[in-house]
């Protein structure tokens, strides 16, 4: 067979779309229900070593002690202190939805009043010059009738 030297290099495009229904589990589920019903953010505390978890968890990740009493959940926030932040100026494809990220998009890591935990959420302020580590922020919830027991029930954290 005559070797026609073909240097055309083929690339093939394939779009992967996998549907998921991720189970949140009892503890994260109850955390999200509370966002919807009471508009409150909850954490729980290890009875043995005192480490907090937000959202609440069934077991302490440090000493493996079970944390099963619902009444012992501690309300945290809605205000808090900013531990860290990033302002994404470059968009990228959001894998869960397939859309491009609307930018500028700023994310804060918030230390809510009441428990030494770190909660990642959206910041209203997107101008990096107006965001400082250590500044005070507050959770802004959707109106109750629009809440759906998911993390978006908190719209964002606004600067206080």
């Amino acid at each position, binding site marked *: 067979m005559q070797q026609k030297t073909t240097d055309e290099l083929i690339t*093939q495009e*394939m779009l*992967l*779309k*996998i*549907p*998921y*229904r*991720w*189970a*949140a*589990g*009892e503890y*994260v*589920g109850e955390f999200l229900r509370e966002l919807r019903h009471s508009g409150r953010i909850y954490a729980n505390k290890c009875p043995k070593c005192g480490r907090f978890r937000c959202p609440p*968890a*069934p*077991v302490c*990740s*440090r*000493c*493996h002690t*079970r944390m099963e009493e619902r009444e012992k959940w501690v309300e945290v926030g809605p205000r808090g202190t900013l531990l860290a932040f990033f302002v994404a100026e470059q968009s990228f494809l959001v894998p869960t939805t397939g859309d491009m990220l609307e930018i500028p998009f700023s994310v804060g890591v918030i230390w809510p009043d009441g428990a030494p935990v770190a909660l990642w959420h959206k910041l209203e302020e997107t101008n990096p010059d107006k965001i400082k580590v250590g500044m005070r922020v507050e959770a802004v919830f959707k109106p109750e009738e629009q809440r759906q027991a998911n993390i978006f029930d908190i719209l964002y954290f606004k600067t206080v």
Partner: protein
Amino acid sequence: MPQRVGIVAVAQTKYEAAKPRQHLSDLVLEVTDKILEETGISLIDDVDSVVSCSQDHWDGRTISSMPIPDVTGSHLRDESKVAGDGAYAVLYGMMHILSGHHDIVLVVSHCSESQTDGRIIENCAIDHIYHRMLGLDFLSCAAMQANRYMHKYGISREQCAKVVVKNRGNAKNNPYAQAPAKLSLEDVLNSSMLAFPITALDAKPASDGACAILLAKEDKAKKLTDKPVWIKGVGNCYDAHFLGDRDLSACDSLVSASKRAYEMASITNPGKEIDLVEMSEMFSYQELLWMEGLGFCDRGEGGHLIDSGTTQMEGNLPVNPSGGLLSGVPVTVAGMSRVAEAALQLQGKCGDRQVPEAKIAIAHGTAGVCGQMHCVLVLEKGGK
């Protein structure tokens, strides 16, 4: 004699078609805590390393083992993940101990098939250059293997249906089983055809669950339980990936894997020396084909073996007393749950599904299209 590796305790969740109340970390926590209750050990002080097995595609997460350290006491400790099948995590945990690097290893596996669409996940495991666009998945490929195998050796659909009736029947005595059932051959033959010759009942149902096994070095195993189960032999092997590269009526990689395991366990006549088999049969024809691969009968004799009743509970070589995968066990957990069930048999803890005086058992895990990779473990009853 080098230090042997012992199975000290095993734990399984109930396998169910869907577990919407449990995050993957909850599944692993459930089986981890069952191990702690049974052995009384502390995760932080006694367990040296944790090996998990899970699949990024099935969990919908890159590095899907990231929630595992939280529930296995692995903060600032040794933890790692293998992919493929749970039996490989047992193999890797065993290596942790044989190498002298660790003494006690917890191996865990989980999967929630109900979370996603298995056909798309399996399609992602098929070669992307020449085959993926054709829409192939493990079911359609297995159907082509079944056809080839049954055509070449005259295996009948009734013989395959007998496997389903046996396993779903055995599952009635297994509290962990997802779908025990009293079926007739006609039920299986007449259930809806998925991909000729595989009907709905010929195929493993989708399932959610988790499994955990505690491994220990010989001296520590003897302290932790009076019924240790020794891992006497292990062997694993890959086959070719392209279906056209293989004789689909055979399972060469299972032949090599079991040969290695038997050599290590100095087993010369599997048919005589082995008391029971817990294997990973995703489809009914596979139990017949894998029995040939494991050396319990000659090539093409799988049909006669099921006809002979040898592999029934009352036969002299019960296969899948637990009900096997056909009664519903999640992928990834499959291979590890075979090791767990085989160990329970050798510990005499199987209640109604107990095989009397079982001394040596085979546990088998597989992954990939048409059983492309196999892992075989030979377990031996320890203690008095």
